[in-house]
């Protein structure tokens, strides 16, 4: 048996069971799933959240996947996902079926949720919301976040904290 051939253990159904209702975030770039758990505050979600890391993917080679039971992500929440996983797909599941499926879209502006990594930014020293302008040079996997206030520019790996 070659490494390309799938064993029964490789089949998705053995690893992650289907959910009755909720959201499946698929095609997440490897290593980004935990950031999405953070940004969507899924650790405190009341129902089951299943996280799969390093799944084989025909498009990405490897990918992460998140299944959130009993919660449908809003378009605004889906766009938050796009900051860290711009290629991901959102599947809304109702009664075990995909009721809606769409690609996430990188927002132009991100309000409130990201804590500015610059400790001397006014947003970290006053009770107020942060605001970032999002840009990329054609490659959506390398986005830049420019703080509206301190004007510093950050990439994914600079972002450490989030607010709900």
């Amino acid at each position: 048996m070659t490494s390309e051939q799938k064993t029964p253990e490789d089949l998705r159904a053995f690893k992650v069971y289907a959910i009755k209702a909720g959201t499946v975030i698929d095609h997440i770039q490897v290593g980004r799933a935990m950031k999405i758990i953070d940004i969507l505050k899924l650790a405190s979600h009341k129902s089951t959240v299943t996280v799969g890391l390093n799944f084989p993917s025909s498009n990405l080679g490897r990918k992460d996947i998140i299944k959130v039971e009993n919660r449908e992500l809003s378009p605004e929440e889906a766009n938050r996902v796009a900051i860290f996983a711009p290629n991901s797909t959102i599947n809304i599941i109702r009664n075990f079926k995909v009721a809606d499926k769409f690609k996430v879209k990188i927002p132009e502006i991100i309000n409130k949720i990201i804590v500015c990594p610059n400790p001397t930014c006014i947003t970290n020293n006053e009770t107020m919301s942060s605001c970032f302008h999002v840009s990329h040079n054609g490659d959506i996997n390398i986005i830049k976040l420019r703080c509206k206030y301190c004007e510093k520019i950050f990439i994914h790996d600079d972002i450490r904290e989030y607010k709900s």
Partner: protein
Amino acid sequence: MSDLSTEEIKILEGLSKEEILAKLKSEAEEQHKSRKTFFGRDIISIHELSREGILHILKHSKGMKETPQPDLLQGYVMGSCFFEPSTRTRLSFETAMSRLGGKIIGFAEAGVTSAKKKETLYDSMKIIGQYVDVIAMRHPMEGAAQRAAEATDKPILNGGDGSNQHPTQTLLDLFTIQECQGKLDNLNIAMIGDLKYGRTVHSLAQALTNFNATLSFVAPESLQMPNYICDDLDKHGVKYTLYEKIADVVSSADILYMTRIQEERFPDKMEYEKIKNTYVLDSKMLISAKPNMRIMHPLPRVNEIATDVDHTPHAYYFEQAHNGLYVRQALLGLVLGKLT
């Protein structure tokens, strides 16, 4: 949509709704940047000013220098809100207002304000905005001027927010370059010293993207111009070269823009000791300089320009500091609607 030409409508028909909105937004931003009416406008960041806007401010700065207007702002009050110490910026803002006939209230350090009682900047500026017509401010936190602008509808003139922006310094630098060279376009400008942390050189380099400058950055490797500024210059097609010695740029430069290298920027003190005298300019180094070359410095200087340079025709840093007065007068007149 009735104002659009047939050709414009055809272009828009080929775009998605999102693309049309993005196009309209981008056009609106360009119009905002290039508008010459500064009445009621905040001056927070040099990024918000277009070439036309900058030239408009410089034209009025020249007017202020040539023709004093002692009654222009009679009846107006400026809030001078300096949450951290400043000498030239605060005094030149206050002198500018005073010489235009206006009055000043304010403070020169945060310790005498309600900030000491943990009042937020937002609340402080909202209240001060109710007393005055315009606010000049400096604050140690980056983004403070933007936050203040959200708290009050009175114009905010940013006199420095942490290591972020100091747009009036950049405008006075541009005014000085224009004054001593007779033009702003197509000049060779060398920036020397601490280019990594110096906000004046960052803003000046970015402002010069509007004027087809050729830039030279002279600094030790650890204090060279940050990548994000170089990326911005690349995006605008600005030519720049990195150097390690002042001697490499003296003969070609129209402007030598000196900055101070601060010892505290070096985690390794041995490294500071090695380079501390490398970026010092003295009169002997100016032999090959072009006659029109002028030396600028945002001041204060420590030892990076020897005092024997002061007496050469190339020294222009004291005139530069003087020009801050006229640029700030022009800005006060513009944002208060007394200059158009």
